[in-house]
């Protein structure tokens, strides 16, 4: 039996440039900057004092006070993104609860809750630690709470692969539908890593930019010569993936088709990309082969593009390795240039952006690409937006630990 085709019928985005899909997408097209001074935690003594925060996010717009109190922010963000995605899809989950599953990736889970509880532990003793510490902190809880809220009782797991978590969640959910274990999957990623320890630790690992605390707008500058690290961000993205036949039968509005998922490990170094971006290239090649296309068919690439010196150079090399002489013809943009790096959410938000690009046949640009880098010499769409005819688009995600994931979406045609 041939595996079913999988389509996208809903997108939900909660990002530093907008609360909601349309708000985020329009802001990205307009080249809006989502980076600003850190306000969620005390930051005056932190090496990096800027972040991509979801400004104005009010959990009580989605949740009652009691539920909100028992959820870490990474879960709250995902609930908001998921509500929007389900609403767009029109999926009636309770009527087929066992046929709808949930995979929501999170790179660092409830680190904010953990830090709060450490403070109580140190100041007041072990006896005062909250019984909700463990269930609020563990990183599967976005998937768990989303299932409780929506009633989705199918397969339910969180995939964790650092900054590729959201992409691997979507890829794994795609495979769940293909093997017939569910008709629809709520798939995405979420992270709320704007915390003191998280900023301190990523800065200590020399991953963050610390040179532009007074100029947040220009801090995230993927592929620009003066880039010197990523900007930590938060957010959530959710896609509703669905068996094509199932979507057709209920008359759903199909946004795009997910045609393949390629995953590969560097097996090289914990924090550095493998030589010449070999692992990332392999993930793209696997995805291209599985999609049954050639690299010539790809019309748009949403890059991982973090704004670290290493990532952007090696990602560029990997694109060249895959696309050869035509690499310069493919428009490539980095969503992180405007929203920063939201860790496990990044891959899911960017998958949502890639689908929206196919729907509108329009792509957003790479913000802050001002000073050209000879090592990054491809077409990164430096203007705000561009109309592009897109049949196939790739979304790339690369994670600490050497995880590489590529998703290929296709313009929907029966």
């Amino acid at each position, binding site marked *: 039996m041939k595996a079913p085709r999988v389509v996208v019928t809903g997108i939900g985005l909660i990002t530093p440039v907008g609360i909601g899909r349309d708000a985020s997408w329009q802001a990205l097209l307009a080249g809006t900057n989502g980076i600003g001074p850190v306000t969620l935690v005390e930051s005056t*003594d932190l090496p990096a004092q800027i972040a991509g925060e979801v400004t104005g996010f009010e959990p009580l717009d989605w949740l009652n006070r009691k539920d909100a109190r*028992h959820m870490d922010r990474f879960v709250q963000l995902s609930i908001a993104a998921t509500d929007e995605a389900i609403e767009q899809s029109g999926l009636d989950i309770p009527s087929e*609860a066992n046929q709808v599953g949930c995979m929501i990736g*999170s790179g*660092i*889970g409830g680190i904010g809750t*953990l830090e709060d*509880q*450490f403070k109580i532990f*140190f100041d007041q*003793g*072990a*006896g005062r*630690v909250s*019984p909700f510490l*463990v*269930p609020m*902190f*563990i990183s*599967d*809880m976005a*998937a*768990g709470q989303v*299932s*409780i809220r*929506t009633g*989705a*009782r*199918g397969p*339910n*797991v*969180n995939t*964790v*692969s*650092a900054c*590729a*978590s959201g992409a691997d969640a979507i890829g794994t959910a795609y*495979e769940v539908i293909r*093997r017939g*274990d569910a008709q629809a999957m709520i798939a995405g990623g979420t992270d709320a890593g704007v915390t003191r*320890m*998280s*900023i*301190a*630790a*990523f*800065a*200590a*690992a*020399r991953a963050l930019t610390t040179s532009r605390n007074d100029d947040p707008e220009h801090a995230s500058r993927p592929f620009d010569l003066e880039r010197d690290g990523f900007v930590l961000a938060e957010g959530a993205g959710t896609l509703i993936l669905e068996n094509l036949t199932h979507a057709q039968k209920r008359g759903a509005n199909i946004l795009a088709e997910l045609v393949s998922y390629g*995953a*590969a490990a*560097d*097996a090289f*170094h*914990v924090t550095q990309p493998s030589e010449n971006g070999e*692992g990332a290239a392999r993930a793209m090649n696997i995805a291209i082969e599985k999609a049954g296309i050639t690299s010539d068919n790809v019309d748009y690439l949403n890059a991982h593009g973090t704004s670290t010196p290493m990532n952007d150079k090696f990602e560029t090399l990997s694109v060249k390795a895959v696309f050869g002489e035509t690499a310069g013809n493919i428009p490539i943009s980095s969503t992180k240039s405007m929203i920063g790096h939201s860790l496990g959410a990044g891959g899911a938000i960017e998958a949502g952006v890639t689908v929206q690009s196919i729907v509108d046949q329009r792509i957003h640009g790479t913000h802050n690409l001002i000073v050209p880098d000879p090592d990054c010499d491809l077409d990164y769409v430096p203007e705000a937006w561009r109309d592009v005819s897109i049949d196939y688009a790739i979304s790339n995600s690369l994670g*600490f*630990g*050497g995880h590489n994931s590529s998703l290929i979406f296709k313009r929907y045609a029966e």
Partner: protein
Amino acid sequence: MSREVVVTGLGLISAAGNNTEDSWNNIVAGRSGIVTLSRFDTSEYDQAIAGEVHDFDPTEHVDPKLLRRIDLSTAFAIAASLQAISDASIEIPAEHPDAVGIILGTGIGGAHLMIEQQRVLDEKGPRRISPFLMSNFLPDTATGLVAIALGARGPNFAVSAACATGGAAVGEAAEAIARGDVEVMIAGGFEAPLQPIYYAGFNAMRALATNEDPKQALRPFDSERNGFVLGEGAGVLVLESLEHAKARGASIYAQWVGAATSSDAYDMVAAAEDGRGINEAMRGALEHAGLKPEQISYINAHGTGTPLNDRVETRAIHDVFGESAKHLMVSSTKPIHGHMMGASGAIEAAICVLACKHQIAPPTINYANPDPNCDLDYVPNTARKAAIDYAMSTSVGLGGHNSALIFRQWENR
């Protein structure tokens, strides 16, 4: 067409033992590894007990320099993975590195360095934080490091589904082979929750068992059960396509035949009283394997020893297995190795594999007082030699995650 998947290597590290042979011998003999907790000062608690890994020397498998930078949970994962690969006799670089992937799961992740660094943050400030903290803390570092240690370049990520993590990891990994993405997967779970902050959190949940004799504290299905005991360690399975295993003349432990995960969609902590979630996982795995309930001989249950879990699980088994439930052997090995959270589902999957291979059902120890709500054959206190064609491993996690795996005995199939 989905391909056949077999188990060709095992790596086990837990309170029951630091390798497969010792672990299996202790499990069959019912020798518990649960002791008074010795890892940190527990004077604040009336009693603190745990399934501690004893005499584990990580330097056998991990470079001492790397060891200083990684969490204990990651050391467990690396050691058990290397054990499993060596057991399977696979030389990865020679056998297509791109065809070997890794999915290992953890429920909580590592916080040994985090607790130390929290003090640094409070006392010395954010600029003194270790550059290794983040990679030490991130749950997927282990899969990345195992890939580096082995040169395995296939699909690589961690999964997290609380206490159902290990089962979910093994299921996802097996599916990657079945659909033809890879030939070999290193799959399992790892956990090191014996840390002051997590212990305090679990203690606050009032879910931990107490007993004058630590070894008798965790008593699944017994009417006097009063909670679970945290354990630690890792369980890793080498899964392989049957073709690949045959081509290299590998020795086969058992066949993987089905898996399913499900969600209660009910509560972030408690299992749904009607057992609807674990129910669906068991049904899904049976359907996947194309089996009737009566074909299952043995279930390694989640059996945590909490009043709710064991009651709900028993009810779910009745629902799914109907009349054949009374012929089933059901045991919980947690009183021997403790509740290893994200590693539980993996080590218990390995135990099912060994039960198939040796045709022995491990016992539920500490079973003394029948509970009318728990009325199955729990293989009380003594292991049983029995014909086991198919064995099922079930796991249930905080957040309503459930997983079920089914293995088939290989020798006389």
